[in-house]
């Protein structure tokens, strides 16, 4: 049996109330008030589509052996690299083996489901037993645009396997149309869209029913048979008419999170699916439909295994861990939409040395360290001579993956003088669980969240962005483990 064996979701901690956007930009575009309900999720200054995809992947792989992954797929329309495979970075951060399949999916908001179908077909064909799809998107609308109101940032992940499946894959139906409601050229930063009435009435209201009807005809089921119908569409009116047209009861239509997260692009269908999987029961049929230059409709049936999955409220938990972003200008600077002065010191040049990066890539991407065969001391970064002064063994090291081990705070500080676009910089020494210590950045926290001895987990983040050479460089940061939000 092939299907989804686990899922993960990631909603970044910062939420921007849409009234704050309206307060800043309503003078230019008063009609924005129509879209100013609720809030949108905004990734932190050190996050992007790729880091959110990794975060969702980590969430999805809780309890799974990462060495058993045979394929890692990444889906996004805002991938940091056009050339340098993004899924390779994701695979490194997830500590997958080197002998795996990897691919990037983009170009359309249905890239997430295209990747999911590819993973399903990869496993169905017997090419491998486990394939993970990690999606992340952080799309930008111009200041004061409707897109700025609608778009939100998030990550989602689906693990597809041939055993222990929680939702069996039953079939799919796709349609492809070069229907340009939204577009972004290869060098454009901002989304451009055509008239909204046309997108709503001619786009969503036409293609989604077309995909659903096509799937139902193909597999001999009716729209009403599904316990969950999951499709993105942020026009409330269109959702109502689609439901009525197809005979789907409103409570079976999955909430689109448009007022809590916003439309997370290629991620959104998968994020909604992850949220739906929190709530389903064995035997439930699920219909997933993506939207973007056509549709992918995918049909799943929930198995008994769903009851064995631990910590199912994954998207909900991520949604509950939140902080207000009460400053629109901060959002603009973080997304590089307005030039900010970082001082003369910020002008210093810095070269990413790729040959060095390659030598250390396991330590950088997977936070891989070494453990001494002689004395058992775990250490990071990887050492050739054991750091234990009573040992000092030379070249007696095994490799060890540390990113999922967590650690504790040894020392910390909040620093006003360190150059940062999110001052004050917070960093300190972290003791890794199992041994070893290093100085690291802390993120997604305030000074008040920190205390010596407090547990931390590690989050894959943007370490720096080099605008001169368009290099996004990633590394791990420590995030204090928060009390569970019930």
């Amino acid at each position: 049996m092939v299907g989804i064996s686990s899922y993960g979701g990631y909603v970044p901690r910062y939420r921007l109330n849409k009234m704050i956007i309206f307060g800043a930009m309503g003078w230019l575009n008063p009609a924005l008030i129509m879209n100013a309900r609720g809030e949108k999720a905004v990734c932190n200054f050190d996050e992007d589509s790729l880091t959110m995809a990794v975060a969702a992947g980590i969430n999805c792989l809780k309890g799974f052996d990462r060495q058993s992954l045979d394929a890692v797929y990444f889906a996004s329309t805002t991938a940091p690299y056009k050339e340098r495979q993004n899924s390779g970075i994701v695979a490194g951060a997830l500590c997958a083996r080197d002998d795996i399949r990897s691919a990037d999916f983009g170009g359309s908001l249905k890239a997430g489901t295209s990747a999911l179908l590819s993973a399903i077909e990869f496993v169905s064909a017997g090419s491998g037993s486990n394939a993970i799809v990690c999606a992340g998107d952080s799309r930008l609308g111009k200041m004061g645009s409707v897109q700025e109101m609608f778009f939100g940032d998030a990550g989602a992940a689906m693990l597809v396997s041939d055993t222990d499946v929680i939702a069996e894959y039953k079939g799919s139906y796709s349609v492809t149309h070069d229907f340009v409601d939204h577009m972004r050229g290869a060098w454009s930063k901002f989304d451009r869209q055509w008239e909204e009435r046309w997108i709503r009435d001619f786009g969503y209201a036409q293609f989604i029913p077309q995909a659903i009807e096509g799937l139902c005809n193909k597999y001999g089921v009716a729209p009403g048979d599904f316990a969950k119908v999951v499709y993105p569409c942020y026009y409330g009116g269109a959702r109502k008419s689609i439901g009525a047209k197809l005979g789907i009861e409103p409570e079976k239509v999955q909430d689109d999170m448009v007022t809590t997260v916003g439309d997370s692009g290629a991620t959104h269908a998968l994020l909604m699916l992850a949220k739906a999987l929190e709530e389903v029961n064995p035997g439930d049929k699920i219909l997933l439909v993506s939207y973007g230059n056509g549709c992918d409709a995918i049909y799943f049936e929930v198995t008994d295994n769903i009851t064995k999955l631990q910590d199912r409220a994954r998207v909900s938990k991520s949604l509950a861990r939140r902080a207000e972003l009460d400053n629109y200008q901060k959002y603009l600077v973080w997304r590089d939409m307005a030039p900010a002065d970082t001082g003369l010191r910020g002008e210093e040049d810095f070269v990413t040395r790729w040959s060095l990066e390659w030598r250390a890539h396991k330590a950088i991407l997977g936070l891989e360290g070494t453990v001494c065969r002689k004395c058992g001391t775990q250490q990071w970064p990887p050492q050739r001579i054991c750091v234990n002064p009573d040992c000092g063994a030379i070249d007696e090291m095994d490799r060890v993956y540390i990113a999922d081990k967590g650690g504790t705070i040894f020392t910390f500080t909040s620093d006003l003088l360190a150059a940062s676009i999110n001052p004050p910089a917070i960093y300190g020494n972290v003791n890794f669980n199992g041994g070893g210590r290093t100085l690291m950045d802390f993120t997604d926290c305030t000074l008040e969240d920190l205390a010596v001895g407090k547990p931390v987990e590690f989050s894959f983040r943007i370490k720096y962005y080099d605008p001169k050479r368009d290099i996004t460089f990633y590394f791990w940061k420590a995030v204090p483990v928060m009390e569970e939000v019930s």
Partner: protein
Amino acid sequence: MNKFEHVHQKIGEEVRSIAGYYTVLEEDVLEYNGRRVLYEVKMAVVETSCCGSGGLGFIFVPGYILSLKDRQTPNGLWVSEVERIVEESEKKDIEKELRRIYPHFYEVSFA
């Protein structure tokens, strides 16, 4: 026990260290729960520190006013009698209000 004498610093005087300086921009009074809270609005510039540069606004709250500027020190600085604010909830309220009036101030500290 929480009463103490607060010596007012000279407004606008640069107090210099090797790493930078700070100065009291103004003193003002905040009405809170029928009581009068004294506070100093200050700014610091860190322009010659060995390890970076920056600057910040910060606010210092000596406490509730018992008597305001009713005598002077031998070197001519005003002295007020104030009561230290100890209740955490009161501190929180006062800090919130001050942060509303003075956005982006780095620190609000109490005596």
